[in-house]
């Protein structure tokens, strides 16, 4: 009995020492990595800004175009055409983002503009789809009540349909922008710059640190974008519609 307890205590001590060592080693290695990644700091800052500019331009243009398209397609007068258009968009979403950028390059040449164009197209689809689906999911009863109360179709759209679809529309914008940030490094391949420069050069040179210097900020930016849009969503969507509050 006593022996057994002793053994158990010893095992515990061993485990504790092992854990401490592992943690110490890992943190030492992490320190190492961090300092080697940090040498790319000025590249990271410059390329991040360059990349986020592209994302922002593509994103804003996509919202400006896709939301009205989604609204237009959801109008009862478009019922027949809308299904076809939305199906086409769905298929379009299956096109790989890299292929999209390659196509943009082959038509528009090299540089920022075709990169932004490619990102714009990629962002467009989820936003248009969610706007359309969000508006279609607004219960018929609400629209009937609004009509019966004497609202004009435009008032119904602004005061009833859009506010109630806003959560779903924002969900689309959130997904779309996160995907766009994740896709943006590919812009480097067609001369658009951005963090892809560190990532792809890192791959080519077999330089793991350089690759991480591009990949980690890209991941962080995608998360940051998602959190940021999430905050905007919380701010703009009525508490009565937000399922999380």
């Amino acid at each position, binding site marked *: 009995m006593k022996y057994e307890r002793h053994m158990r205590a010893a095992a515990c001590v061993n485990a504790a020492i092992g854990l401490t060592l592992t943690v110490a080693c890992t943190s030492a290695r992490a320190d190492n990595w961090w300092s080697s990644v940090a040498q790319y700091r000025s590249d990271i800052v410059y390329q991040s800004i360059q990349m986020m500019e592209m994302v922002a331009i593509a994103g804003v243009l996509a919202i400006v175009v896709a939301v009205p398209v989604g609204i237009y397609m959801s109008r009862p007068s478009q019922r027949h055409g809308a299904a076809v258009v939305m199906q086409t968009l769905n298929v379009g979403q299956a096109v790989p983002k890299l292929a999209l950028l390659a196509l943009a390059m082959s038509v528009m040449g090299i540089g920022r503009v075709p990169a932004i164009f490619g990102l714009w197209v990629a962002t467009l689809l989820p936003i248009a789809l969610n706007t359309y689906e969000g508006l279609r999911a607004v*219960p018929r009863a*609400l629209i*009937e*009540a609004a009509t*019966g*109360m004497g609202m004009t179709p435009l*008032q119904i759209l602004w005061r009833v349909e859009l506010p109630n679809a806003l959560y779903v529309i924002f969900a689309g914008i959130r997904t779309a922008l996160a995907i766009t940030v994740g896709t943006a490094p590919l812009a480097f391949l067609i001369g658009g710059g951005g963090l892809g420069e560190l990532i792809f050069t890192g791959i080519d040179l077999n330089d793991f640190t350089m690759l991480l210097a591009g990949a980690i900020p890209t991941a962080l930016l995608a998360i940051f974008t998602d959190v940021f849009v999430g905050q905007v969503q919380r701010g703009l969507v*009525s508490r*009565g519609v937000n399922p999380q509050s």
Partner: protein
Amino acid sequence: MIKLSNVTKRYGGTSGPVVDGINMEVGAGEICVLLGPSGCGKTTTLKMINRLIQPTSGKIFLEGKDTDEFDVVELRRRIGYVIQQIGLFPNMTVEENICVVPQLLGWDKAKARRRAAELLEIVALDPGVFLARYPKDLSGGQAQRVGVARALATDPAVMLMDEPFGAIDPINRELIQDEFLRIQRQVKKTIVFVSHDIDEAVKMADKIAIFRAGQLEQFDTPDNILARPASPFIAGFVGTDRALKRLRLVRARDALSACGCSVRVGESSARARAVLAEHGADQIVLLDAADKPQGYFTAAQLHALDGVLTSAHAFRIQNTANPGDDLRAVVSSMFASGASWLPTVDDDGRFVGYVSQAHIVELLRVPAVEQT
């Protein structure tokens, strides 16, 4: 107030009209229930009044004016509208929901908000608690009250209600119907109300319009519909227990008989026998000085008794009715206590008369010549 003249609705594809040549008139302050099985055209008829559906032919008049002459949006803003799903806007608070139409009509904000608080008081919800709530935080019954409050916001003379209590469980439905009738006594709106529930119709309506396959089969008071159904279809629709349903339409105060048939404590047995004979009743109630019933005597018992009557000799009274009770409740408590009559006492406990089974039967009897 609302007059439908030869109103017909026909959809392009279907063979027959969904609503066929309806003529009816709803007076100011009346509740008119459109009743019938699903697909009979009652909802279509309702929606033609605020032009959510445009009639194929015929005219509808609101306060004497052809509804086609109104601007459609203006017409709808003049008419309160409540639907079964209630249709509160989830993105708006209760207050914002109620203020929708006032806002559309350009009321100033402070006035609209005062009105919202006032309306919540009317529908018995505490404004302090409910104004800021969102519809998702309301129970079904609360949401329904808010729906009614919203329809009342601009104090429209006319309200259209499409199965407003259909989605509420039976217990709460009774409560909210009572509540609604209370509100109606206060606001006196002209209401057209769609229902498929005969009990609800009998309870709420001043007039019932029964529809069948687009036709108006009978348009009459609830009592006449139950007592004198115009066709076998209506007789079937209102149910074989329609005579019992009529009980609900009569209050105990309107079914009293033998009101003077009572003696006071201290009066003689001989006097009691004389009073009994005068009223031709089988029993007599013993009252104290404050007119409160102390017990009763039957005719047989009085013959055996002599001298002064006291409550010690009397049978105990098991149950009493209130003049405001409907006969259904009264008959139900008669059955429960095995009595063939109940003394009726007012709110202060004073005896006002009898309700007897024999008299109820007489009251509800439809003269044989009228029966087909």
